[in-house]
C-alpha cells in the first residue's frame, strides 16, 4: 500500500497511464499546473503583503459568490429531482417480460482485500441475484498478498459461475487496478462492480438491462442507487445515510437530467463492456476512480443514467475509519479535478458550458465547500465573541449582505437537503438527526483537510475501508 517504485511498462491494468497519460492521475500536477499554481500563490502572497485587507476582501468576495452559486446550483438540482422522477423506471412488468435467452452476458467484478469476514454473506447475496447463471459470471478479485481472503475463498463452496482471479502484487495497489484485471478477463456484454459488503436488490441486473434498452445509444453506464442497511447503528451512520440519500436519490438524478457529467458511485455502476475497454478501464492511480470514470465517459461523448434499484451497503459507523474513507474521497475528487483541469479550454469544449460549470461545482466545488465552511464558521464565532474590527473590515456592505445570505440561507439549504433525502427515502425517524447535520459537516471538513494533506504527501495511497462491523440486529 505504498507508492514507491515505478509502474511496470506493459501492465494491462495500467492502460489509462500508457494510452491516455493526459487523463491519468499518475502525476497529480503537470508542470504547467505547477507553474500556474505557483504564479497564483505568488500573486496572492504579494497582494497580502502589499494590501492585506484589500486582498482579503477580494478573496472573501470570490469565496462568498462561489458559495452562493454552489448552494443555489445544488438546490436547483435537488428541486429538479423533487419536481419529477428523473430516474429511468424499470417496472416489474418490464423485468418479468425479459426472456432469459435474450439477456446479455454479464460480468460482476468484486474486488476483495482483507474481506474474509464478509465473504460468505457476499457469496450468498450475489447468488440471490435474479439472472440466469449461464449468462452471468462473478469474478472475485483477490490480492496476491492477501492470504487470509484467498484462503477463505478456497474454503468457500463457490457456485459454478463464480471464479477468483489473483491480482499480482505491484504498485499502485488500488481497487481500480484490480478491477482492470477483471475487465481484461471479461468478454461479456455488460459489466458491473460490487463491493464486498454490497447487497444489490435481486432484480438489479435485469433492471439495468431494461434501462439500457430504453436509453440512448450514447448511454454507456447505468448507475444504481446506493444506500445503507445499517443506517440506525449510531449517529454517524444516520448522518451518513442522510447524505447518501440526498446524493443518490436527489442530487445525481438532478445531474443526470441536466446532462452534466456524473461522478459515479463506487459500486453498482453497470457498463457496456466494450465502451469501458475502449476508454482503457479505470485509472489505477486515482483513489476515486469511479468519479473520474464518470467524467471521462462524459468527455468522450458517452452518458450515464440512473436506474430505480438500490444496492445496500454497510455504512462506516466508526469515526476514525469514516474519516479515513472521507479523506480518500476528498483526495480522489481533487485528483480528478486536477487531472481534468490540465487543459481547461479542451475540457470546456468537451463538456460544453453547462457541463463544465457542473464539473466545477460538483467536483472542485464540493471540496472547496468542505474547506471554507469551518473558516467562515470560525470567523462568525469570532465576530460574535469579539466584534473585532479586522473581521468587519473584510465584509464591506455588499459582501456583508451576500455573506449574511450565505450564512443564513446557504447553510439552511444544505441542512434541508439532508432532511429532503430522508423524506424521499421515507426515513422519517432520521429527519430529526438530519437537522443536526452541521456537526457532520465539521467531520467532513476534517476529512477534507486530511485528504488534502494526503494528496500532497501520499497521492496514490488507498486507505482501505474495513467492513463487517454492522450490528446484526439492524440489518434488513
Amino acid at each position: 500500500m505504498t507508492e514507491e517504485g515505478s509502474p511496470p511498462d506493459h501492465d494491462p491494468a495500467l492502460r489509462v497511464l500508457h494510452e491516455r497519460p493526459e487523463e491519468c492521475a499518475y502525476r497529480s500536477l503537470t508542470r504547467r499546473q505547477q507553474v500556474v499554481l505557483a504564479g497564483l500563490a505568488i500573486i496572492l502572497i504579494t497582494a497580502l503583503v502589499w494590501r492585506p485587507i484589500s486582498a482579503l476582501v477580494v478573496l472573501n468576495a470570490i469565496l462568498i459568490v462561489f458559495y452562493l452559486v454552489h448552494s443555489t446550483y445544488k438546490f436547483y438540482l435537488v428541486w429538479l429531482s423533487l419536481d419529477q422522477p428523473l430516474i429511468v423506471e424499470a417496472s416489474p412488468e418490464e423485468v418479468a417480460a425479459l426472456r432469459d435467452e435474450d439477456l446479455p452476458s454479464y460480468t460482476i467484478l468484486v474486488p476483495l482485500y482483507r474481506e474474509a469476514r464478509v465473504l460468505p454473506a457476499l457469496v450468498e447475496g450475489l447468488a440471490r441475484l435474479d439472472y440466469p447463471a449461464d449468462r452471468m459470471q462473478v469474478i472475485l478479485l483477490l490480492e496476491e498478498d492477501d492470504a487470509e481472503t484467498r484462503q477463505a475463498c478456497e474454503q468457500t463452496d463457490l457456485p459454478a459461475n463464480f471464479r477468483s482471479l489473483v491480482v499480482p502484487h505491484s504498485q499502485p495497489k488500488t481497487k481500480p487496478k484490480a478491477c482492470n484485471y477483471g475487465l481484461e478477463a471479461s468478454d461479456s456484454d455488460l459489466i458491473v462492480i460490487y463491493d464486498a459488503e454490497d447487497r444489490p436488490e435481486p432484480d438489479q441486473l435485469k433492471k439495468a438491462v431494461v434501462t439500457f434498452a430504453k436509453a440512448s445509444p450514447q448511454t454507456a453506464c447505468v448507475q444504481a442507487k446506493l444506500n445503507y442497511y445499517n443506517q440506525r447503528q449510531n449517529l454517524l451512520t444516520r448522518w451518513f445515510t442522510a447524505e447518501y440519500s440526498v446524493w443518490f436519490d436527489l442530487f445525481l438524478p438532478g445531474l443526470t437530467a441536466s446532462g452534466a457529467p456524473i461522478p459515479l458511485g463506487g459500486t453498482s455502476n453497470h457498463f457496456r463492456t466494450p465502451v469501458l475497454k475502449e476508454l482503457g478501464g479505470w485509472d489505477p492511480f486515482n483513489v476515486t476512480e469511479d468519479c473520474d470514470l464518470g467524467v471521462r465517459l462524459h468527455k468522450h461523448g458517452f452518458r450515464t443514467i440512473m436506474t430505480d434499484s438500490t444496492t445496500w451497503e454497510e455504512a462506516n459507523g466508526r469515526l476514525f475509519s469514516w474519516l479515513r474513507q472521507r479523506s480518500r474521497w476528498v483526495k480522489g475528487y481533487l485528483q480528478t479535478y486536477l487531472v481534468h483541469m490540465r487543459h481547461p479550454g479542451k475540457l470546456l469544449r468537451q463538456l460544453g458550458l453547462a457541463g463544465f460549470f457542473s464539473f466545477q461545482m460538483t467536483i472542485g466545488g464540493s471540496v472547496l465547500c468542505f474547506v471554507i465552511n469551518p473558516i467562515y464558521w470560525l470567523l462568525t464565532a469570532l465576530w460574535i465573541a469579539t466584534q473585532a474590527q479586522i473581521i468587519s473590515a473584510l465584509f464591506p456592505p455588499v459582501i456583508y449582505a451576500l455573506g449574511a445570505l450565505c450564512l443564513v440561507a446557504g447553510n439552511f439549504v444544505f441542512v434541508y437537503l439532508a432532511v429532503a433525502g430522508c423524506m424521499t427515502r421515507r426515513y422519517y425517524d432520521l429527519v430529526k438527526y438530519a437537522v443536526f447535520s452541521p456537526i457532520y459537516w465539521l467531520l467532513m471538513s476534517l476529512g477534507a483537510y486530511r485528504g488534502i494533506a494526503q494528496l500532497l504527501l501520499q497521492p496514490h495511497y488507498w486507505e482501505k475501508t474495513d467492513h463487517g462491523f454492522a450490528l446484526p440486529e439492524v440489518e434488513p
Partner: protein
Amino acid sequence: MTDAPTATSRRRWLRSAAGALIFVLVILLCLRVGWAAVTRYYLVNWDGLAAVAHAYDVLYKESGAHLALLGFVEPPLPGLIATMLAGLGRALLHPAFVPAAIGALLLALGALAVRRIGGEMGLGEWSLLFAVVLVLDPIVLSYAAGGAPAVLLILLLLGGAYSLSRWGEHQRFRDLLAVSLYLAGALMTRYEVMFVVAAVAAYTAYRSARENGAQGAEGTVIAFLLPIVYVAAAWIGVCWVIEGDPWFFWRNTFSEVPFGPLRYPLTAIGEVLRMLLICSPLLLPAAYHALRDPGLRARAAGPLLMICGSGAAVIILGPLHASLPGDAWTQLTTLVAVSIAAGLVVVMMAAAHLAQRRATHRQRAVVVVLAVAALLANLWLVRAGYGRPDDPAAVLSGKISFADDASDEMLAARYLCADLDAGAEPVIAGWPGFAVALFTRQVDRITVLPTVLSRLEDRQLRPGDIVVLKERTGPGGLARPGYKHKWDDRLPPSLRLEPRWCTQQWIGYEVVEGDGQRARIRPRRP
C-alpha cells in the same frame, strides 16, 4: 408525423403568448387604478408606502446597505421585495406610485398563478375566468393598486393553498416543501399567519400519522416546520443583533395591545362568517361539495383548514383585534387574504370537479342552491353596509379601499422642498413622516424619526435646523392668536422652535436662538 409536434408547439406558444398578454394587461390595469388613486384622490396605502420608504433608505440614504433600515416594526418581506424593486422608483413619476407598481407586478403574478392552477386542475381556458375574478375583486385590486402587503400575502397563500391541496392528494415531499416555503414567506409578511401554520402542521401530522405511523408524523412535521421556524428564528436573530432585543418586532407590533380574557367569541365567529361571505361567497358551497367526495376531500381539506386556522386566530385573539387601531378590514387582513386565496383554490377545485361531471345530479343541485343562497347573503351584506368598503366601479376609477388621504403629506413635502433647496437637512418626527420625506424625493438629506418626543430630545439640534413635527393644528392653526407649541420646553434653554409653515397636520419649524425673530408662516394651500 410532424403535425403533432408542430401543433403542440404552436399551442404552447399561444399559451405563453396569452400568459404574457394577461401579465401585461393586469399590470396596466393596476397601474392605471394606482395612478388615479394617487393623482386624483391622493390615496396612499401607508403599509405599502412604508415598505417603499424603508427600501429607499436602504438604496439611497446610506452608503452601505443595512438591514436595520428595512424597519423592524412591520414584517420584513414586503420591505425586502420593495428593496429589490424600488430601484425603479426614481424613474417613476411619483414616489407614491411605486407601491402601485409593486402591487401590479404581484397581482399579475397572482393572475398567472391562478391560470396555471386552473390548468393543472383541468379547468382549461375556464381558468382565465378565475384569474379575472381575482384581478377584478375590488378588495384585491385595492390592495394591489395601493401596494398593500396584503397582495403579497394573497399571492403566497395562493401558492401555499394549492401546494397543500396537492400534498393532500399525493403526499409528495416537494409539495410539502413548497407549502412550507410559501407559508414562511407569508409569516414574514403578516405574523398572524402563525395560526395558519399551526393548522397546517396539525393537518400534516394527522395525515402522515394515518399513513406512516407516529414516526411518519414526526418526520413530516419537522420537514414542514423547519423552514418556517428557521426563517422566524433568523428574523428574531436579526432583531437581536441589530436592535439588541430579540423580541423587538413583537413588542413594537403589539406593545400597546392589552391581552385579556376571551370576551367576544360569538362576535368573533359572526365576524369570521361575515368576512367569508363577503370575500369568498362561493367558498361555503364549494367546501360542502368538496367534503362530500372522498377524493376531493383529500385535496380540499388542507386549504379549508388554512381558513379555519385563520378564523381561529380571530376568535382566539378577539380582544386583541378589538383593541387594535383601524377598522375590521385592517384588523382581519389575514383572514381576508386567506379566505380569498385558499377560497379561490377550493372553489376552482369544486368547479373542475363539477365540470368533469363527477358529481351526482342531486349533489350538483344542492351546490347550486347553496351557491345562490351564499350570493344572496353576500348581496344583502353589501346592501346593508356590512360589505366591501368600496364598490367595484369606484375602485376601478381609482377610489381604492384600505388607503388614506395623503394630500396633507404631499403638501408638507412641497413646503419642505423649499427648505431643502435652501440647503437645510431637516428632521421629521411623527408617523407617517416617511411619506413626507419620500414625497420630497430627497430621502438622503432627511432624517425621519418614527416617534416624536423621546428621540427628538436626544438630537443635537442647532440653530438653523429644520424640524417637521406632526401636530394637529386645524385650518389656519398656527395663525391663531395665542397658539403655543409644546416642544420649546423640551429643548435647551438657549433654543426654541419657530414655525415656518404648516399644513393640516404637519408643522415645519426652524430651530432658532432664544432671542430669534418669529419666522414668516407660509399660507396653506387652499
